[in-house]
């Protein structure tokens, strides 16, 4: 039987001293962690979970940062047969109250029996718990967990987990995202790793380098589980350190002869604009063979920027690749740019926007450059469907639907959401796209989701925060994203309707809305547009129609001559 634990056990017996992870911490030498150390550290956690009465199949929430505790606690949960779920750590700007509310929302739906965190964070977590009323039996403090110990494999219930049983949960951020955990089985994840490994031609000599957070599929699957379970070295730094010192990524690739990385689109712009030459002295990027653009709309312009900036350090153009992925398919749906450079094409803008057909550009008319997301990986079928679920021909834009051997089992404890996501066995992604000879192009989304720097943000969470501001009435705010060419990602805009027309009062409300969102969510508002009554477009059911409000906002800005 194959499951995560048997795979880990095999690594332990076959090459205990092989380094699985190099943990980078600023100002310290990198810390190599071997398979023997992972198993020994995880073994300590198995005993800890067991001592606290945590049963196989229980959910364990990890509120830990980048570092060795995360490695041991995560794989300890796996070897114990428990289901780990990583919750983002409290950031400097997030209000503790809001974090607590998010944690409570997660607990209410997910029903975890244990939470693991640091001593200094214990009061925050404890404040969110309701002893005797919620599901949490144990709050485990990392420095109290049992230390590394020689493994006793017969005590690892994880070895007995069936392939179809749930192995882990993935959540996206915010109250809404935390209440919709993607539950994945051992089999689904292992199928994905096998197909995706083949799609990227994973082989001897490959080295993964990553700064991605582990609470997100791109970090968790591509840059954590894939290298560790498939036996390839992973060089890992924290997103917190990377955003302050993006050059570290390039130094790490150079030092370790890194071959594979995954980045959200904004990171291409960010690195190209913010890394200084003096931090790149002696850096050699020629080993990088696939840097996959993934998790937010991919832009040809971003690839150009990145290439122009780093080509002189040995970056090869062929190394720029693309990937379309989602947690519901474990990770990758398609991959492009591995055997041949990434495909791009110019399509007629009007046909694309009005007729929803991607015709190759003609007659010098305005066109849009589309970057191909590649072809579906083995075991994943992709269809483009119309509103009635009928398959559309090539070049016709429709919703992307999937069927695969690596689908989610369910949204955890959310049969309502699970049922809604499927149509006749096909998972409806909520993304729009079109196909050309098997190549998928992504072209916007149906779902009301804002993606900022690769992070999925639910606009309703941001609107709820705005409603807490005096002067803003519930139901009278609309949040949406607008692509920013400079940063390569979306800016978040909020429109709020107010009664007052006094400019100073409106300015005050705008500032308060900005602060409420900045401190209450994972994103920062770029612009608050304060308007009078009846500005917002509503649907027949009275809900705000975000895409219509976005159009109206853009039109107004254009009329005012303000660029957006």
């Amino acid at each position, binding site marked *: 039987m194959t499951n995560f634990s048997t795979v880990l056990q095999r690594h332990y017996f076959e090459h205990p001293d092989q380094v699985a992870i190099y943990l980078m911490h*600023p100002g310290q030498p990198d810390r190599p962690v071997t398979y023997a150390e992972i198993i020994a550290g995880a073994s300590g956690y198995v005993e800890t979970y067991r001592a606290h009465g945590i049963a196989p199949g229980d959910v364990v929430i990890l509120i830990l940062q980048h570092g060795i505790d995360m490695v041991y606690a995560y794989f300890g949960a796996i070897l114990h047969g428990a289901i780990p779920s990583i919750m983002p750590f409290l*950031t400097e700007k997030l209000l503790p109250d809001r974090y607590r509310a998010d944690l409570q929302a997660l607990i209410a739906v997910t029903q975890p029996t244990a939470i693991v965190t640091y001593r200094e964070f214990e009061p925050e977590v404890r404040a969110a718990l309701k002893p005797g009323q919620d599901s949490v039996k144990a709050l485990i403090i990392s420095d109290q967990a049992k230390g590394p110990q020689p493994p006793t494999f017969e005590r690892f219930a994880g070895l007995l987990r069936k392939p179809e049983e749930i192995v882990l949960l993935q959540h996206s951020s915010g109250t809404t995202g935390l209440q919709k955990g993607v539950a994945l089985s051992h089999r689904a994840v292992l199928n994905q790793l096998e197909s995706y490994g083949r799609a990227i031609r994973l082989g001897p000599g490959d080295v993964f380098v990553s700064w991605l957070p582990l609470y997100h599929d791109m970090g968790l699957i591509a840059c954590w589980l894939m290298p560790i379970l498939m036996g390839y070295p992973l060089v890992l730094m924290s997103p917190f350190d990377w*955003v302050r010192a993006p050059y570290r990524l390039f130094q790490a690739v150079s030092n370790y002869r890194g071959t594979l990385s995954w980045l959200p689109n*904004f990171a291409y712009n*960010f690195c190209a604009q913010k890394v200084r030459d003096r931090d790149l002295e002696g850096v050699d990027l020629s080993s990088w063979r696939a840097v996959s653009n993934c998790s937010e709309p991919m832009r040809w312009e971003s690839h150009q920027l990145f290439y122009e900036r780093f080509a002189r350090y040995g970056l090869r153009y062929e190394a720029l690749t693309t990937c379309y992925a989602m947690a519901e398919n474990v990770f990758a749906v398609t991959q492009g740019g591995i055997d041949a450079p990434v495909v791009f094409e110019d399509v007629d803008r009007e046909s694309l926007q009005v007729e929803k057909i991607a015709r190759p550009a003609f007659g010098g008319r305005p066109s849009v450059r589309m970057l191909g997301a590649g072809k579906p990986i083995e075991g994943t079928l992709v269809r483009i469907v119309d509103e009635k679920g009928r398959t559309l021909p090539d070049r016709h834009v429709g919703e992307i639907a999937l069927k695969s051997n690596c689908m989610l089992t369910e949204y955890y404890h959310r049969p309502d959401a699970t049922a809604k996501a499927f149509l006749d066995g096909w998972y409806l992604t909520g993304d729009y796209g079109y196909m050309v000879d098997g190549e998928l192009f992504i072209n916007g989304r149906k779902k009301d989701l804002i993606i900022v720097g690769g992070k999925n943000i639910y606009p309703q969470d941001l609107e709820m925060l705005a409603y807490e501001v005096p002067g803003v009435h519930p139901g009278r705010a609309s949040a949406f994203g607008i692509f920013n060419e400079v940063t390569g990602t979306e800016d978040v805009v909020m429109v709020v309707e107010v009664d007052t027309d006094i400019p100073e009062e409106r300015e005050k409300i705008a500032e308060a809305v900005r*602060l409420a969102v*900045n*401190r209450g969510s994972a994103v*920062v508002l770029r612009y608050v547009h304060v308007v009078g009554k009846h500005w917002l477009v509503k649907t027949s059911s009275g809900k705000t129609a975000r895409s219509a409000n976005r159009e109206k906002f853009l039109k107004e800005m254009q009329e005012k001559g303000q660029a957006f």
Partner: protein
Amino acid sequence: MSEEIIAKLSRYITSDILKQPNRKIDPDEPLLSSGLIDSFHLVDLALFVEDNFGVHIDDAELSASTFDTLNQLAAFIQQRK
């Protein structure tokens, strides 16, 4: 001296980072812990300080525990000069 530094920082933050040139920043207003300056702009701020005041801010120091307000940042700059 400190006032000059604050004025220069303030101008840069409102026009280049916040893109709200008319906004006023109080010298004691939290910038980092309020999310006013988000983490994607910390590198910009460090480079601006280095280019304009010749003071290097190490990336490990880019957090609210080192400085959070204009007053604190100005004091930090003067101390390092």
